[in-house]
């Protein structure tokens, strides 16, 4: 039976997975390297611990592949319930690290239930959407689907861990893939656009721009086209109200550090000297990581030769900022390799998802892609300074046992499902 799995499993994905894990570990080793280190398996060092978890993950892979494929679909709801309870439990028994109550102390390591929740939510969403009775054309079903995503997100926000919460919203892509009307996405993007435009140019210019757009619209419209006056007026008012509320939220509800992040990201500060000042203080992490990556040049400084890495100039360099190590020590060659590996992985996963006969497998596949993609996008975007600072790890790379374990679970459950792709139902 196991032979069949090995024959059918997608080896390309496994290869990329192993490559990413290996590169990740090399860089954790380098980031935390100290001369006195003796053994690779020294569990008191971070690279030693990570190596231990890589082995645990490999064992987990064997277990995942050994289990029946329909096990995951059948128990999806239970997983989901269990993980929600574990998130709730954090409020009572959680361990606080770096200001966020996101962990259970299991003695030998800290478990982060939000990682588990990612897998469980992806499974639950796939299960709900693939249910024969679910019809995404119905408002009620749309709402339920969104609720499945929203519940864990709302439980995670107060930890506080907005980064992890954000990850769940990426699952909207799954619902969207399965038939959620396009305008939801349209509204979402419009809101982000209005948010940015309001911050950068202010409400006045937004109104002027809107007005000009409407005039242009009337100017270009076909004669026969009947203008939906009332929706137009309502949406215009809604946009202006939203824009005003953005101002309000930004100025009154956001804390200064949030404001600074945005003013850095959108370059709201016009005075170049002050901007440089913000870059070096508020944007210290990003500033240092950009500088470290820049200093790597095309070829990099070489393994264990990253001077800024050694000097610990970039904070969190073995976790969220692991990518800077690659940038400094392996240069553009290293960073490009990683980007290309991830891109191939995602495209391959889309291909795999699309070839599933079984709806649940496909939807879960999209869930996996969405979750991995948003991590990848936000993490690297933040490290190279094109997105504001949001602390989430880079899958398979960042130091962290539960992170690695659950990303492995997430991916290999899908690969297991893929080995059963020919069966419409298990």
């Amino acid at each position: 039976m196991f032979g069949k799995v090995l024959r059918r499993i997608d080896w390309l994905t496994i290869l990329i997975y192993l490559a990413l894990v290996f590169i990740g570990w090399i860089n954790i080793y380098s980031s935390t390297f100290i001369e006195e280190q003796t053994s690779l398996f020294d569990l008191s060092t971070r690279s030693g611990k990570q190596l231990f978890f890589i082995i645990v993950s490999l064992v987990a892979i064997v277990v995942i592949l050994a289990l029946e494929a329909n096990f995951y679909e059948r128990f999806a709801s239970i997983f989901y319930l269990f993980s929600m309870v574990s998130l709730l439990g954090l409020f009572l028994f959680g361990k606080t690290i770096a200001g966020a109550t996101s962990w259970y102390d299991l003695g030998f390591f800290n478990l982060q239930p939000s990682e588990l929740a990612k897998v469980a939510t992806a499974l639950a969403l796939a299960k709900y959407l693939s249910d024969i009775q679910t019809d995404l054309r119905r408002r009620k079903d749309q709402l339920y689907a969104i609720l499945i995503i929203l519940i864990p997100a709302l439980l995670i926000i107060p930890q506080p861990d907005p980064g992890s919460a954000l990850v769940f919203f990426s699952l909207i892509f799954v619902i969207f893939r399965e038939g959620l009307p396009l305008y939801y996405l349209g509204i979402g993007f419009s809101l982000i656009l209005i948010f940015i435009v309001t911050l950068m140019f202010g409400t006045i210019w937004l109104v002027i721009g809107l007005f000009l757009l409407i005039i242009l619209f009337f100017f270009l419209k076909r004669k026969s086209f009947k203008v939906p006056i009332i929706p137009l007026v309502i949406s215009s008012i809604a946009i202006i109200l939203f824009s005003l509320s953005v101002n309000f939220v930004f100025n009154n509800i956001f804390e200064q550090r949030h404001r600074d992040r945005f003013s850095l990201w959108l370059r709201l500060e016009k005075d170049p000297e002050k901007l440089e000042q913000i870059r070096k203080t508020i944007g210290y992490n990003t500033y240092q990581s950009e500088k470290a990556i820049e200093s790597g040049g095309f070829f990099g400084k070489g393994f264990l030769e990253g001077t800024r890495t050694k000097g610990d100039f970039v904070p969190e360099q073995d976790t969220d900022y692991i990518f800077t190590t690659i940038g400094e020590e392996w240069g553009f060659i290293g960073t490009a390799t990683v980007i290309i590996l991830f891109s191939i992985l995602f495209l391959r996963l889309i291909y795999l998802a699309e070839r599933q006969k079984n709806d649940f497998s496909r939807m879960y596949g999209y869930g996996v892609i969405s979750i991995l993609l948003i991590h990848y996008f936000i993490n690297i975007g933040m490290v190279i300074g094109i997105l504001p600072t949001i602390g989430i790890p880079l899958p398979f790379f960042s130091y962290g046992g539960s992170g690695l374990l659950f990303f492995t679970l997430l991916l290999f459950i899908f690969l297991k499902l893929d080995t059963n792709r020919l069966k419409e139902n298990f």
Partner: protein
Amino acid sequence: MRRVLLSSIIIIIGITFLSRLSYLQIFSFSPDQLLEDPSIKRIYSYPERGYIYDRNGHLLVGNDPAYDVMVIPREVKPLDTLEFCQMLGIDKEKFIEKLTKARVYSPRLPSVLIPQLSKEDYAKLQEKMRKYKGFYIQKRSLRYYDTPSAANVLGYISEVNEGDLAKNKYYIQGELRGRTGVERYYEELLRGRKGVQYIQKDRFNRDIGPYKNGSLDTLPEQGKQITITLDKTLQEYGERLMVGKRGGIVALEPKTGEILSMISGPTYDPSLLVGRQRSKNYTELYNDTIANPTWDRSIHAQQPPGSPFKTLNALIALQEGVLDESTTIRCYNGFYVGKKKRGCHCGGGLRNLNSGIYQSCNAYFAGTFRKIFEKFDTTDEAMDVWEKHMKSFGLGDYLGYDLPFGQKGRIPNKEYYDKWYGDNRWSSSFIISNSIGQGEVLATPVQLANMTAAIANRGHYFTPHILKKIEGKDITNPKFTEPKHTTIDKKYFEPVVQGMADVYRKGTAKWLQIPGIEIAGKTGTAENFTKIDGVRTQLTDHSVFVAFAPVDDPKIAIAVYIENGYFGSRYAGHIASLMIEKYLKGEVTRKDLEKRMLEKTLEHEYAKPYSGEEFKINERVW
């Protein structure tokens, strides 16, 4: 469509990331990474700056240790401030002010509290230093001058400025470099190369070991010991003679072009620009815009050369064949340009080449100049030939010595006069003053000395230079070791040299003879003007003298230019003779000349234009 959307998002993200990364890592990347990297500390070790010796091996410039009291503010423990201040020789307010300043700069890094303690203070302080935590003494090396002279030639060192930093990547803030003279020109030889040690730091600025195990570290390379061509004794003697006078003296060894002495008056003691009083002294020297002690007159002062220039006109006339030794020209106690008479001091009568030179007859050389121009069909042609000959003596252009460029001087050419008078609207009579070294020609003392060396060598010269040996090895730079030939044939020099020898034997310098040495020379008395309240006013003539000796085997060629010294045979002639005697004999027998020169000053002359009163020039008495 929905299927494609996610794939395109992935590809767009990938491309965005790659372009941002290529912007960071390929376009923003600068190869000077190591210098900008905050995690790499560079510790420099500085080699000792090279010593400078004179041609006879006497030390001119060495190094002296100096002691800075340093402080690391964070490590300072409460102390007996009063006692400490007393030992440092400063008051308590000043001490607290300095300490605060150091703390503002950085509590962790060392700052200089008191720079350059004297050796005595250091000795007192050294034993008790242990008591004061956070303070220590750092040894530095300062330039030490073993001569009070040659400041203009040796130059000085000072801290690098923004311009140096931008131009030369070698230097970093706070380092020293040669600013003028030899210190500047041979900066790279003298300074050596600093050694560097790279230290890996963490973000708290703590050392965490050598970077790349020290594989990039370098050892300091010692500064080279150099020997310069100056004769310390002669230089010092010349500067003593120059006290109270303004002008320049340049003495060369004709056989090599080596600069034996290069004196600018007034000058200053080079030690003034070292140590704690440096900036105060520098400001004082720099602000003296009347006497201009920091302005090296020997290479910068462009003045009319006066009568020594006649010798060149004689040579050109001989070379062009417009006259020979026996050709005579009558002097009417002057000569006529049109109907206007120009004066002459020679006494009048029939003059030939020999007497023309030793009596310095203006009429003879005006005639000579006319003859040169009459040879050619057009003035332009004649002017070109004249200019070519003149320039072959190193006049009218930078000489190319290994010191600051100095000035070009001026040999006027036809374009110059075309601009003044218009094309074809001038002739030799317009520019006749050039025949006697007045008019438009200008030369610096070093150019005059070089010209004299060319005559002494009978037709060639070596570019004057100051560097003699590097670490005991003679220089081989062909720029200085290969002769430059003038356009005058060797055979034409002898009559002119004889004329110059007769200047001493029976001519304008017969009172300046030195027993046992045959000298050839030429006096010069150059008219000059200044502007007082916008009015062109004539001042007392400059006293000029060029000479070389011995006539048959020249060992020294000298040009002396004394501003407002009147007759060439007065100040300049005296000084030239004394210098020659000093150099060739080692001591001076003409004590009468020496006494006069050491005592006399020209300060009263220099005060005249500033007095605001009417004044007389060219006074008979002296």
